[in-house]
């Protein structure tokens, strides 16, 4: 059982923003609910108003833009991301990172947007998304903006979201040809546990040629990006 609250079930993101504006700090957004229900059951959070996004269809779905960006709606569940052929085609590491989160039941309920907004430093998606240079798409009272994933979390359970702002999705740029990425985590106890430490890495080797005064200079390089979760 959780403490009583007033439920709001908007059908559009715009309507959700109006509700957040009207109820201010007394309102909490619920996406999948795995984290918020737990916090409420334990009495750690007691919102007077819950704005549930389950009827906001525009926040669902996974697609690929004409420019090759992977676009994941905030309400995409971890399991949808794990099993999406589009995600796997874009970057197999991303699908595999989501496949390793908690248990199948949690992955069926927990959402990408909820995961990022919750800002638990032990979570798997942020490092995986950071090395792919992904951005969080946010809608708020002052319009839309994109935040690099590494700039979203500012502290444990704290984000750079402004009051009244809502995560609507995540976009992942096209990977350079030849890019490789991996995600690894250390789990000393059970497979569904929080990682003691996890690491995501992406590398791309490139060969470029510069033409100058009739001669070709070839440049070989390796670009790397590494992100690590909290070390517990």
């Amino acid at each position, binding site marked *: *059982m*959780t*403490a*009583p*609250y*007033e*439920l709001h*079930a908007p059908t559009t993101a715009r309507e959700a923003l109006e509700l957040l504006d009207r109820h201010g700090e007394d309102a909490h957004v*619920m996406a999948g*609910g*795995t984290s918020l*229900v*737990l916090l*409420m*059951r334990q009495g750690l959070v007691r919102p007077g108003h*819950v704005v*549930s996004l*389950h009827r906001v269809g525009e926040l669902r779905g996974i697609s690929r833009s004409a420019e090759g960006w992977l676009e994941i709606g905030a309400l995409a569940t971890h399991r949808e991301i794990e099993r999406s052929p589009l995600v796997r085609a874009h970057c197999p590491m991303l699908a595999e990172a989501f496949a390793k989160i*908690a*248990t*199948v*039941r*949690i992955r*069926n*309920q927990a959402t990408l947007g909820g995961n990022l907004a919750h800002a638990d430093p032990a979570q798997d998606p942020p490092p995986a998304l950071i090395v792919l240079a992904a951005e969080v798409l946010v809608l708020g009272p002052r319009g839309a903006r994109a935040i690099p994933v590494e700039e979203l979390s500012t502290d444990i359970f704290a984000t750079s979201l402004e009051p009244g702002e809502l995560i609507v999705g995540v976009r992942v740029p096209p990977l350079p040809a030849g890019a490789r990425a991996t995600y690894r985590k250390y789990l000393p106890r*059970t*497979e*569904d546990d929080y990682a003691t430490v996890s690491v995501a890495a992406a590398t791309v080797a490139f060969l470029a040629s510069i033409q100058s005064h009739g001669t070709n200079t070839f440049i070989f390089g390796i670009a790397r990006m590494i992100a690590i979760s909290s070390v517990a």
Partner: protein
Amino acid sequence: MSQQLLRFRVNGVAREVEVPAERLLIDLLREDLALTGTKEGCSVGVCGACSVLVDGVLLSSCLLPAFRVDGAEIRTVEGLASKEGRLTPLQQAFIDHGGFQCGICTPGQLVAATALLAEDPQPTDDAIRHFMMGNLCRCTGYQGIVRAIHAAADTAADGGVRA
């Protein structure tokens, strides 16, 4: 507090219930509908005793607000066997292969394994262990559970009715 009028189906039966917004699915099932086959273990979504299918999707009913099942089709352990009480091949396999000891986790194990066989009718040993990893058996009767799921998959492959 806000009351919610919910219309949904449980095990094929249409239901209409008015509940407070904060009602959780586990309490809706056990307290309001007296479907006590679904068990509450850890209450934090870890143990799997409260596993149910919502529109075919395996979920922890202890973490799901009841308002989310408005319009949905729910299947609980009570809805696995036929109305006449004929067990599914999976249920029979749990009996034949000792897939339970004390029995408290068994409803969740059966519902989870039903979901597994629906999406992967011939799972490998690894696939069974990975999918079922979140359904804890404190008697540690895992070998029998894995054997039973293999046996149910084999029964289906031999032309039996799938779970």
